[in-house]
């Protein structure tokens, strides 16, 4: 499938008198293929929004190559902008304008037929509130309006930064269905979100960023399997005795209410063999696969530790890729 979005070796640093130079993006790479719902994940301050802003021409990159729909950006942005719908962070709208008027102005500016405004208001569930002033909208309604503004153009690529922000559970589910429906109709969706369960549920592929560098990418299944099994759930009648036997066999065992969690075991057959040798029969032996949240926390080094207040910049700094190192050496 042709890539809809390509980023290679993207670098961006911000300078300030007070804090000096801060590297926001440090050789970041990303690839999104057509028709996918792609999750773009990273801890706070990892460079997600900077990446999206750079991609959309709001921020100038220091180095790197980017392309949208096969056209290099930012140079070709005026050409591809009509096919890209985006919301970056929580967009604000003039509070005294109605939702419908806000969209009409955007439609006029972008040369979109006025009839499209009613269609997107219907799509995001604001049909009956379109003539209310934006100041009367809840956070979730403003978010719906933002999504509506991104959908106005009937985009081929939809970039949504935290679209579920402020949405109620029903709204989150509606948003999920909307994105799936868009993907099925051929729209590529790039979704930046911190609701990892949601991302795991709806995304085909993900890119995880930490400290401005890519730490993982690929299909959700591949990213999850790359971390392997984290242990096995074992149900057995005599949990205490089984626990002692498995520990004696150099396995790590955690006793839960009605089962054991067994880690540090090379083969699951070792568990059954160890217990069967002492006439303990296993009722259930299930591998525990990691969820996206645990993989994310592990990869980004942001797993909470009891008694420690993690700071926003305390995340894992992955090693530079060989290409990035070569690039650095070339520059030096």
């Amino acid at each position: 499938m042709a890539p809809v979005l390509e980023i290679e070796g993207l670098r961006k640093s911000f300078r300030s008198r007070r804090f000096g130079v801060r590297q926001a993006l440090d050789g970041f790479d990303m690839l999104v293929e057509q028709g996918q719902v792609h999750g773009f994940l990273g801890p706070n301050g990892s460079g997600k929004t900077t990446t999206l802003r750079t991609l959309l021409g709001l921020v100038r990159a220091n180095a790197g190559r980017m392309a949208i729909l096969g056209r290099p950006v930012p140079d070709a942005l005026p050409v591809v902008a009509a096919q890209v719908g985006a919301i970056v962070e929580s967009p604000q709208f003039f509070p005294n304008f109605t939702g419908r008027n806000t969209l009409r102005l955007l439609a006029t500016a972008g040369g979109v037929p006025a009839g499209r405004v009613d269609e997107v208001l219907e799509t995001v569930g604001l049909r009956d509130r379109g003539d209310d002033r934006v100041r009367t909208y809840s956070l979730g309604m403003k978010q719906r309006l933002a999504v509506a503004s991104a959908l106005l153009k009937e985009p081929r690529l939809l970039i949504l930064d935290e679209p579920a922000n402020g949405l109620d559970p029903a709204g989150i589910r509606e948003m999920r269905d909307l994105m799936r429906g868009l993907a099925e109709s051929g729209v590529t969706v790039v979704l930046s979100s911190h609701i990892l369960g949601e991302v795991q549920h709806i995304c085909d592929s993900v890119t995880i960023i930490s400290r401005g560098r890519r730490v993982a990418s690929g299909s959700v299944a591949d990213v999850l399997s790359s971390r392997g099994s984290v242990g096995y759930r074992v149900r057995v009648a005599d949990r205490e005795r089984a626990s002692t036997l498995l520990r004696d066999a150099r396995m790590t065992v955690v006793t839960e209410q009605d089962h054991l969690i067994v880690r540090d075991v090379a083969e699951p057959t070792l568990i059954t063999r160890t217990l069967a040798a002492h006439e303990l029969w296993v009722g259930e032996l299930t591998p525990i696969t990691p969820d996206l949240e645990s993989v994310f926390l592990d990869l980004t080094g942001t797993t909470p530790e009891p008694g420690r207040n993690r700071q926003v910049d305390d995340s894992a700094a992955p090693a530079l890729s060989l290409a990035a190192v070569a690039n650095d050496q070339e520059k030096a």
Partner: protein
Amino acid sequence: MNLLRAEWRRFFARRFTQTLLLVVLVLLALVGAGVAAGTHRASPAAVAQAEQEAAQVRQHLRTERQACEDAQSGRTAPDAPANDRYTHFPPGVTCADAFDPSQVTTKQYLPHSFSFAEETASLVEVFAALLGLFGFAAGASFVGAEFATGGMTTLLLWRPRRVRVLLTKLAALLLGVTASGVVVGAAWLGALWEIAATRGRTDGVTPGVLRSLGLVEARAFAFALAAAAIGFAVATLGRNTVTALAIGIGYIVVVELGGRMVFDVTNTPKPERWFLSSYALAWLEKSRQFFDVSACRYASGACSPTRWSITMGPAAAIGAVLLVVTVGGALVAFRRRDVA
């Protein structure tokens, strides 16, 4: 064209623009009410009495002039008391200048009667000042609020050509200010004509007067549009409305008021040349005359202040430089800087 249409609609849909327009209308209404309250149409009896008073004063001045010339040429009787009034004129001032009957008109002895032909130009300057303030504040807010609310980000996601976006917004602003000015200006002239017709005088409105008034209006619009563009540009550079308004108010307080006090204390010659308001007035009035009193401050005896003036040409040049620097700077900065 689509963007221009959208920005035009946005300009007039904004509450700030609507409120400012209302403020301009209220202020003009107050000035108009003041003009209406201060004008009286003279009755024939009042005119006759004023003519009589003026004739008496003219006769008195003729007598004084004769006495002055006699005193200066030594034709007075040797025993007549010396009269300082006739001998202590500033250099260059003659008896004919000091006692000139032609300076006395009947109008001076009548209650004030608003004349459309003679006084409208100065009231167009009031309109120009208000339209200029409206343009500056509306221009600053038109782009400043976009930065503050993130509207600029949304707009650039739709129209990524930054310079074109900013120029289109500026064009929409200038068209909006012009349209507002045309409507409000027409209403203002209409109101003044009505006051003159009902309570003052409409005589002397010749084609020449109307042409001159048209030119004053044109200069008023140019002034207001320049103010709007500068407000817009400063807000773009500062990326919010408050910066532009603070710079505008700061300039008035620090330079126009504070600077005047400093120049007064230091007795600086021709202090008006350092203030933009002098050039604005010179632009609106074609030429503005000032009196430099610095040489007379510590002089003993008679001293005539030096007359000097600023004409429309230098005023236009100063305005153009200011316009080019601010708008050009805003375009360069907007093109290069990251949009937060």
